[in-house]
């Protein structure tokens, strides 16, 4: 078992490494840190890109040196430089080659500090990966020797989401963390024109919340009957007028990790972030692990075995 860390050869970033180290320490695995550089072209007359290749390799080595300095001796890590037609492809090839169980990537430098923003490559990776992808918020830092304290599973009330919760429970048990099942609802600001008024809106929301709560309680029961249950498990519902405020509605700790599943739309095994999941990812104040549907099923089976 090993985790793959993708570092951007054009920028030194510590946040990805802090998250990777925290996850690896919790799970007791080692890391493979990989910088993917553009591949050289097979047919350039006069080898016109030789110097370019030397430059990309040099920058990638600077970034890998920086990664080694950040990680220090806190985790076992191996450093690789790879040529591939895209970062996404290079990372996925490595996942298959090394049998990695998780890929860790950083946020785009264009995003706000403390939040997650998928760049074009990480976005493509999230959509094509068949193993979970962990994304660090921009500027993410942990204390020395930090471990995951709580795994929060985002739950939307579908079967796929149930698999995800059971899978997340298995992970939480494995890393010695507690489990929390979280659901989020956006309560529309009232339109005074429809004539139904606030009370009706509120009734709908209450109905939804009690439904979710009932499901979640069933899941908690299921989780506690697992062969290796996590330390504790509870449920929480966040509400707000916007996604941002709904997610801020619940409390978050520095050692939290949020797990979201792919959309339950269609039979695709790959991750397809539904509109809700995408919004949850964008506003999460803690690192997010996106779990493809099939991987969620496998995790659930593992947890139940």
């Amino acid at each position, binding site marked *: 078992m090993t985790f793959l860390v993708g570092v*951007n*050869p*054009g*920028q*030194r*970033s*510590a*946040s990805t490494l802090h998250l990777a180290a925290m996850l690896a320490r919790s799970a007791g695995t080692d890391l493979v840190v990989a910088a993917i*550089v*553009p*591949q050289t*072209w*097979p*047919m*350039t*007359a*006069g*080898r*016109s*890109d*030789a*110097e*370019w*290749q*030397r*430059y*990309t*390799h*040099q*920058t990638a*080595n*600077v*970034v*890998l*040196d*920086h990664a*080694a*300095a*950040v990680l*220090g001796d806190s985790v076992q890590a191996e*450093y690789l430089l790879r040529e591939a*037609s*895209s970062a996404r492809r290079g990372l996925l090839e490595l996942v298959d080659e090394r049998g990695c169980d998780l890929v860790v990537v*950083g946020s*785009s*430098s*264009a995003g706000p*500090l403390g939040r997650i923003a998928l*760049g*074009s490559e990480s976005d493509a990776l999230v959509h094509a990966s068949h193993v979970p992808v962990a994304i660090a918020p*921009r*500027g993410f*830092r942990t204390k020395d020797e930090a471990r995951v304290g709580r795994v929060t599973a985002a739950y939307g009330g579908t079967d796929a989401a149930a698999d995800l919760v059971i899978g997340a429970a298995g992970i939480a048990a494995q890393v010695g963390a507690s489990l929390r099942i979280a659901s989020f609802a956006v309560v529309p600001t009232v339109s005074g024109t429809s004539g139904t008024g606030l009370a009706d809106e509120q009734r709908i929301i209450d109905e939804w919340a009690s439904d979710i709560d009932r499901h979640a309680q069933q899941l908690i029961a299921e989780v506690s009957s697992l062969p290796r249950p996590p330390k504790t498990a509870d449920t929480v519902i966040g509400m707000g007028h916007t996604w941002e405020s709904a997610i801020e509605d619940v409390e978050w700790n520095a050692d939290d990790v949020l797990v979201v599943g792919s959309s339950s739309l269609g039979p695709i095994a790959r991750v397809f972030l539904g509109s809700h999941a995408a919004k949850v990812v964008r506003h999460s104040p803690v690192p997010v692990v996106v779990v493809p549907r099939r991987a969620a099923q496998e995790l659930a089976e593992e947890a139940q075995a």
Partner: protein
Amino acid sequence: MPTVAQQLLRRKPTTPPGANEVHLKRSIGLFSLTMIGVGGTLGTGIFFILSQAVPVAGPAVIWSFVIGGVVAGLTALCYAEMAGAVPVSGSTYSYAYATLGEATAMGVGACLLLEYGVSTAAVAVGWSQYVNQLLQNLFGWQIPLQWSQAPEQGGIINIPAIIVIVLCSLLLIRGASESTTVNSVMVVIKIAVILFFCAVAFTGWNADHFHNFAPAGFAGIIGGAGIIFFSFVGLDAVSTAGDEAKNPKRNLPLAIIFALLIIVALYVLTCLAALGAQAPDKFKNQDAGLAAILQNIIGASWPGTIVAAGAIISIFSVTLVVLYGQTRILFAMSRDGMIPPIFAKVNPRTMTPIPNTVIVMVLTATLAAVIPIDFLAEMTSIGTLVAFIVVSLGVIILRVREPNLERGFRLPFGWTIPILSILGCIAIITQLRLITIEVFVIWTIVFLVFYWFYGRRHSELEVGHPVVPVDPDDSAPYVPYTTNVAQPTTGEVRRAAAERKTEDRG
């Protein structure tokens, strides 16, 4: 202060300090090497260059191709020795910098701008001809003459040629790459289209077309060779794969020779088929030549449509490769301080030199829009020929200066091959049009004047820019931090780097 002579003749160290040379497995066999040569060379020139070369050489253009091929083969062999002798992998420009000094390297740079930049424009114009042909065949409409021809050809501006260059540049900015697979597919398409053309064209064979075989005599044949010469650019791709080749001493020369035989055979076959099907006097100013010839003899448009479609796909792919080469050469020159640093600016998100690509796009698109194809082809040829002369000269100079250098591949017969290659290139250059030679000389002078005022002072080798960095980190490119929250200190990074190095060795 260094003297001017010292400045002009200073050489880049062949093994730059701190260069982590990538050692590649020797995995490429003779067949793959040959295919690399065919793929790199088998060009798109053959799709449109006959219309320019036949009026000059007549049916004897067949010999033009043979002569061009022999000269290209000789220089490719010289290139193979050079690539095996200079321990650092590099482009033609780097080899010149390492063996012949800074001023010569800048001269080579000027030639390479023609070999890559101008040839981008040339193939883009060829592409526009076939696009128009395809539009005509499929929809019975084509882009009006004034929007698809250079001013000299009766148009105003060549819009399709601009479009193909802009498209390729956008792909490069996004970080597209041409993989070995794509290259192989392209080779198959090109060969298939050429063979299809020959098969159909031979049905209209008429031996009378060869009666006046060499109307302009030997000078015409060599003149034709000058026009078609750029169809052989890319043969040196074989030599650059040298560090990955199995048994390079035997395989490199064999691969170059085999690739050359295949290419010359295909080109000569195409010439025979085209001339057998159409009288030599009809070639002049014929757009989308191969497609037009087929349509004339068959009297239907479908064969022309097939050839046009194949030509459009393969020319597009070649445009992409050549544009890429141009941007990376400028990148290398900029890193050495020869041209302004904007050419070495790399976008950290896409890992592509965006400003560089945009500048190249604007300049090549401008050339393609307003300069006629025959002039573009000749400018490409003269740039390539002069660069080849420098490489061959470099082989001789290296042999005199460093006789005991370990070489992966050494040319037989002493100096014979480099000298023959130089003479061949000079012979072809003398038969180019006077205007081509004049423009080339002016261009090179302009470039060297620029070097005098800019590169000479900004060179990385200038005193004050230490060649051997005091601190190994200083030779490494600057890589920015995304955020500066609690990053490791330089000292920590350095220690980690040192540890990684010892681990790699251990």
